[in-house]
């Protein structure tokens, strides 16, 4: 074979080999990227699930905090009565919580808290309201409660509605 032709053939072979290696590397990186994308997708869905769970937990936490607020809770000689709201406290708590909305934001975050009396009369109190427009999740918790009127010493029945919003 002519020496020039031999050099040309060997050069071509080397070029093909380099091309092959580049192709292998390209495929390797493509596979890694696909694997990585798959991993990110799984992680993302896990994070979304965790966020949802966390929002639910926070919502339950806010509901619990409201139920135990000394501002509205019933007590007899400083002994707390569970699931009971004092109507006389409610009237003043409503205006005080509205006036100190920023203070209560620390406890109740972005939420809307209202109490509806069902029996003996129908009445409604809006305790706290701080909402956001661009929320991602919203949870509504309804808690049946006893509404105590210390003036008449009678218990009524109502529902505490807590609407929590999360970004």
């Amino acid at each position: 074979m002519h020496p020039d032709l031999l050099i040309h053939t060997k050069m071509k072979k080397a070029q093909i080999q380099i091309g092959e290696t580049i192709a292998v590397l390209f495929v390797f990186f493509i596979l890694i990227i696909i694997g990585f994308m798959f991993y990110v997708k799984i992680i993302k869905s896990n994070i979304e699930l965790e966020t949802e769970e966390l929002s639910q937990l926070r919502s339950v936490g806010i509901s619990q905090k409201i139920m135990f607020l000394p501002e509205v809770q019933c007590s007899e000689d400083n002994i707390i009565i569970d699931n009971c709201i004092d109507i006389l406290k409610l009237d003043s708590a409503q205006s005080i919580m509205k006036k100190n909305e920023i203070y209560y934001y620390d406890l109740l975050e972005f939420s809307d808290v209202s109490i509806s009396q069902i029996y003996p009369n129908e009445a409604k109190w809006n305790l706290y309201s701080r909402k956001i427009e661009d929320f991602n999740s919203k949870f509504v918790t309804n808690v049946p409660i006893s509404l105590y009127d210390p003036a008449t010493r009678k218990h009524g029945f109502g529902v505490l509605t807590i609407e929590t919003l999360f970004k």
Partner: protein
Amino acid sequence: MMNKKGFEIQFNWIFVLVAGTAIILFFTVVVIKQKNVSETSTKATILKSMEAVITGASVSTDTTNIIDIPNSDIEVDCGRVSIGGVSKQYQSLVLFAPSLIKGNKLITQTLAFSTPYRATNLLYITSPQMRYIIIGDSKLAKEINKSMPSELKKEFYQSMPEIKNMNNYKIRFVLFENLIDFPKALEKMPDSDVTAIKINGDSEKGIIEFWQKESNSWLSKGTSFYIGKQSLIGAIYADTLDVYECNMRNVFSRLNLVTKIYAERTKKLTQGATSGRQFQCNQFYSNALSQLNSIFAASSNFNKGNIDVIADSAKSLSSENKNAQIYSCTLIY
């Protein structure tokens, strides 16, 4: 020919080297990123459990819990809890804790702050690795020792013992009598890790002096006040005067809001008690209202004068509530 072949082999090696470096670099970046994400995620998990503790504290009183957490250093400041770079800010948090909580366990305690009605819950957090040395022979010293959880690394002495260094990261002395001489065994510890409070008062109210180690003696860090055993316990857990006073200011602002509600409620009870059997109750409600108004005015600021006013009014209010109970009136709180 040989030169060309040699060049081809060398080029192959260079190519392998570049490709290998690129692959190693890629995986190193991925591993480092993943490590950072994992660390941040652990910190966020601890912070979440702290949030859960804080929520739990606001809904339960007189409870003690031991919580397992990943080994970490939690920094607590006025209205801020942080772990590494992750932190959570609170506007009106009542959390009495040392400035640094180390270890894989948290001891939490909650007590109600009542004057005499419950205004808020006080949350105390500390580490089992922190050492508390209570020295005193008074009734209050014994009560405080009993009130603090048994899970704590606490020691109670009636007089000054010989103190040994047990390699705790922080030591807090709680002194009910005179200030002790600085223990020689603790001289090598960092200054900020050995602190003391000297209590002068009873279970109702009193003065707290804050001290900190300075080489081989004590350095005064200032004086503050307490109202009730609960706030005194707060001064034991919080290792700096600033954190204690910040928490007490938050307690007072909550007391102010709650008192306003109780005052309005009592006013309504007074209006409703103008006829029949309930007329007798009116007097108790009027007396209670004036006490509530004085607590409301005094809770606007945390200082010695206001503490005295609140303590006196709380006593009177408690007796008015008892009177209301005796005469079968609706209770004030």
